[in-house]
């Protein structure tokens, strides 16, 4: 096991080029804090950004609320210094916009440690937007909130962030941090738009109109930075707040086309009901990136099986709706054996070939991502001394 959490130095910040070189153990939020006085930030902002590292973000190609308009990690990583499985050190990508030959940087980002270990990362820093508006739209049904998401994207508005929370989440968050979410709504949307003044106000008007048309009971616009920060604190504290409901949760991560949100969400609640489980939903609605949480108490006999079955049904539902297995958390072991739901044997073989080119012996994070038998005629083994 190789741990990089103590490789946590911010090596260099170039405010003119808007590039920072960091070690993989730097915490995501620490990077943004370190450059905020320059009017810059690091755009990918996972909800766990107080605790997650840039190295981990690179490994999973992490997303976050503001990746809707800004793009996920791969769009913000310019270069990575990597130790390959055979010990060779290479620099993938660079500060020039294009690289001669194959985009190996693009392959590495999101490869979950199976292509090597990042030791230094050059990230793009983003100028803070001149104007920002944060809105909270409340609805008396999940359907109405989901329809508003679909309607917003279809209406030609691409907000900076578009997050959805159901009533169970907002209740837990209110008890936990008091973010000012309405307690009588079945669902809320947290919508942020940014840019220049008039463009922002035009987008605010458009979102308000779409929300009201779809049955919003209230639309509130944060009056100042403090209110904005509180609304976001609620969203980013959601997972901590869940501990108030039940001791355990199983968090899923799947993506569906934005046009299918209403029906898929309905089905998610039905599946949980059928298994006598409680699901809570807080997710990146604008991307169609669902995060159904199933909350439970592991001391209850037989509950694990029900949680697992419900989770599998939810994923199958998402795939059937034209979705994918994971939007930002990765495959790892958990979803490895579900890969054939999305990929044919030939598709998996192509991915296995790419992985083999980086790591022919399969020593880097072995047995992750691709199911056994992905490579025609492969012989998979666990390297000596490897932890899986």
């Amino acid at each position: 096991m190789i741990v990089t959490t103590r490789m946590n130095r911010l090596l260099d910040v170039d405010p003119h080029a808007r590039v920072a070189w960091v070690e993989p153990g730097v915490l995501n939020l620490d990077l943004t804090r370190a450059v905020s006085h320059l009017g810059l930030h690091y755009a990918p902002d996972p909800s766990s950004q107080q605790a997650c590292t840039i190295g981990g973000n690179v490994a999973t190609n992490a997303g976050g609320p503001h990746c809707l308009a800004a793009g996920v990690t791969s769009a913000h990583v310019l270069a990575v210094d990597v130790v390959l499985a055979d010990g060779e050190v290479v620099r993938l990508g660079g500060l020039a916009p294009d690289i001669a030959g194959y985009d190996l940087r693009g392959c590495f980002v999101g490869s979950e440690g199976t292509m090597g270990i990042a030791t230094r990362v050059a990230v793009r820093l983003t100028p803070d937007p001149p104007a920002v508006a944060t809105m909270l739209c409340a609805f008396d049904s999940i359907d109405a909130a989901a329809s508003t998401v679909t309607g917003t994207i279809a209406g030609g508005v691409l907000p900076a962030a578009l997050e959805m929370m159901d009533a169970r989440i907002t209740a837990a968050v209110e008890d936990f941090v008091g973010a000012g979410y309405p307690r009588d709504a079945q669902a809320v949307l947290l919508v942020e738009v940014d840019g220049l003044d008039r463009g922002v106000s035009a987008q605010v008007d458009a979102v308000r109109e779409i929300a009201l048309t779809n049955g919003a009971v209230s639309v509130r616009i944060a009056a100042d930075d403090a209110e904005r920060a509180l609304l976001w604190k609620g969203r980013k504290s959601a997972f901590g707040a869940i501990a108030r409901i039940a001791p355990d949760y199983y968090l899923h991560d799947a993506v569906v086309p934005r046009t299918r949100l209403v029906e898929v969400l309905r089905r998610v609640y039905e599946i949980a009901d059928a298994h006598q489980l409680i699901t809570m939903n807080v997710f990146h609605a604008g991307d169609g990136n669902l995060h159904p949480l199933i909350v439970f108490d592991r001391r209850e006999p037989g509950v694990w099986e029900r949680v697992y079955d419900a989770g599998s049904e939810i994923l199958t539902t998402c795939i059937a709706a034209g979705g994918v297995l994971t939007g930002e958390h990765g495959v790892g072991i958990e979803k490895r054996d579900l890969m054939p739901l999305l990929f044919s044997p030939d598709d998996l073989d192509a991915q296995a070939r790419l992985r083999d080119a980086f790591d022919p012996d399969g020593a880097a994070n072995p047995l992750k991502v691709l199911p056994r038998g992905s490579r025609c005629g492969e012989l998979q083994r666990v390297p000596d001394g490897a932890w899986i």
Partner: protein
Amino acid sequence: MTASAVQAIAASVANADAVVPVGTRTQWETGNPSGEGLQISAPAGITRYEPDDLTISVGAGTSCAVLDATLAAHGQECALDPRDRAATVGGVIACGVSGIRRLRHGPLRDHVLEVRFVTADGRVVKGGGPTVKNVTGYDLPRLLVGSFGTLGVLVQLTLRCRPRPAHARWFRAPEPTDRFRAAATLWDGRHTWILLEGDESDIETQSSGLYPSEAPQLPDGEHRGRISVAPGELPALGRDLDALPGARWCAELGVGTVHVAGDDAAALGRARAAAHDHDGWLLREAGAAEMDGFGRPLPNAELMRRVKDAFDPARKLAPGRLPL
């Protein structure tokens, strides 16, 4: 685009000793010259368009003009922006050539969600997925962008679209600047052009001190190339290029791409040497037939060779296009 058309391509590729994917030849000279082989053209046409999800799937042989017209009818766009809109979507993506609005809209590789391609042994493979966000499996779409057809024959692509900006206007600025939230900022050493997109009154407010302008023309000619250099090197590189006889150039500020045209092949060669001095490189786009398309050994050539061998061990796809 029919499945049978793709299957026919797969069968042809499987049976050929060498395969050269070909579109409309608008970028035929980009990169290294191609060797001989069976020429394969990908199917054209819109396979599936979900305007409400901002995604579109097209045959790789679809022209960028058709793609743009289809999206424009729904107030959307995909900022591929090739020099010649007759270029096929597959050709643009295979060459990995980003458009001049990259500053605002990001590089080409960020627009591609899913790829379908025919492998060297004639199988049809899908990489990526149809949703706007996806980390399921390895990022084959990014690998295929800029691979010049050497890893597979692209047959279908799913792209991310965006709402078309309400307004877009070019301006001239008195000096190079990154003060604006511009879609593009071009600089040729004497003039600076800025493309502003968005709300009309925001453009009005932002453009105080700027002069309305026609869209600038990128340097053109028989011998062309594009330099890729860290954006911080542009002022110094610009001075060096200005000192070269027979070279005209225009740089994308904030990006690091420099479009260069030479009066003759030697002038393009001198521009390439200048790029190397600034730790950049020049991709030959047209003319200068004797010029190696990349001009210097590829970085990580050994690792790239392993990738090439993994996908095309017999070296039959687009022979010669990448100097590996």
